[in-house]
């Protein structure tokens, strides 16, 4: 990962502690641009952006869940360096920034500027992240009714009236416990 982006810092250690915030920020900005490329093209971005190609192979979701878990274990807002230090495995700083940017785009984390760098706060838990990913899968499929047996499908305007009439009829005989069926819908 380090050697994959020449010109950037070859070593993690000085980056985390000694590198000025401005440089970290520029890395973040560059990577969020790279992130957009990686998200936009499903082809092989490996040649132009080795970093993103590598990330894709390692399973985006897994890394996102890990980063989110670490962020949630923090007491308050955490810096990307802090996240990197507490992550299992040997992830590059830039990778952590990429994942955080991705989570930010999904509204799973929030960030605030502290000095010249960002601090990140978890805005959603693991379940929330799963929901976001599921929604993305579903929204990516235009004809999802064809694949998944869904509980409900579309209603045309006429259907809505018909359905209300039917439900009113269903409630009419005996209405023991749920009086809001008809007006509360």
């Amino acid at each position, binding site marked *: 990962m380090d050697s994959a982006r020449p010109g950037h810092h070859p070593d993690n250690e000085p980056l985390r502690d000694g590198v000025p915030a401005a440089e970290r920020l520029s890395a973040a900005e560059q990577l969020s641009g790279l992130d957009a490329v990686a998200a936009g093209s499903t082809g092989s971005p490996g040649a132009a952006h080795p970093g993103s190609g590598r990330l894709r192979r390692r399973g985006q*979701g*897994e890394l*996102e*869940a890990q980063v989110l878990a670490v962020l949630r274990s923090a007491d308050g807002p955490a810096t990307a360096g802090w996240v990197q230090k507490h992550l299992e495995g040997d992830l590059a700083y830039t990778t952590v920034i990429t994942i955080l940017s991705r989570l930010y785009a999904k509204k799973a984390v929030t960030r605030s500027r502290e000095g010249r760098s960002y601090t990140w706060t978890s805005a*959603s838990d*693991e*379940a*929330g*992240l*799963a*929901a976001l*990913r*599921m*929604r*993305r*899968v*579903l*929204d*990516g*499929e*235009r*004809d*999802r*009714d*064809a*694949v*998944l*047996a*869904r*509980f*409900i*499908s*579309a*209603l*045309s305007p*006429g*259907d*809505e009236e*018909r*359905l*209300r009439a*039917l*439900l009113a*009829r*269903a*409630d009419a005989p005996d209405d023991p*416990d*749920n009086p809001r*069926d008809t007006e509360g*819908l």
Partner: protein
Amino acid sequence: MGVFVCLPLVLPLTALPIARLAEQHLHPRSATRLLAVVGVLLALCSTLCLGLLMVVGTAQLPGNPLPDSWSDPQVRAAVPYEEKAGIVAIGALAAVLGACGWTVYRHVRLRIGAGRALAAAPSVVSGDIAVLPDPEPYAYALPGRPGRVVVSTAMTECLDARERRALIAHERAHLAARHHRCLLAVQLAARANPFLLPLRTAVSFSTERWADEEAACAVGDRRVVAVAVGKAALYSHRAPDVSVGFAAFAAPAGPVPRRVAALLAPVPPVRLWPPSSAHVALAALIAAVGTAASALSSLNAAVTLVGILHAATPL
């Protein structure tokens, strides 16, 4: 051969009356199975017919992959080739294979994607149910090993406890009866021959009805299931950003009110024989004759062609 070889291409039309009538007159379980089997058979025959036309057609083209002996005059005399039909068949067959491949790919992709989304968050899954915190109301059965019922919190919030049980029972029925296989099969059939599209719609409706009936048995109250379906549909309809994904499926007749009405009506009879009306009997007869004719025609053509190929090719 002759014009009869083309019959399987149009014979799927004979299944349309039964596809139309099955919904009202057959038990959803019988309707699903009957229509799925008929649809798949007709689609297979139709595709086989396309394949035969292509083989006959390509025998004329230079550089075709068939053995050289195919262009022997004797073989040409034996096969009433229509060059144009053959060339059209090549295109049609390629389109069918492409569409089917694309359908399978999307099916697999959606299942893998959804499975991964759940796998990344083991905490949301308890037993076979995964509840996802999402403001968009949805609920569906995600087939796999093991299959899972995926429900969003918005969906559970709009239903009370009994209706929620009905919803879960409905989705579990989908998983238990492996409805996704039926759905995929008729979807592929409709790709193979567009005349089978109404059959696909009918099957996807009857699988829903089937699951509704199973849920009604599990909960012990048809009315609860009816109310759950109705409430969920009205609630989703009101949600702002669902309409986009649903537009493709919007049927003018409206499947949801028909399901609710069927649930409020008495239990449909399970028996198949004697048929409940003369219309159904006639429609079933037409479909059966059509399917049989389609199978015979394409098998006959295939056997003839294989015979000629075998005779013409010194293998």
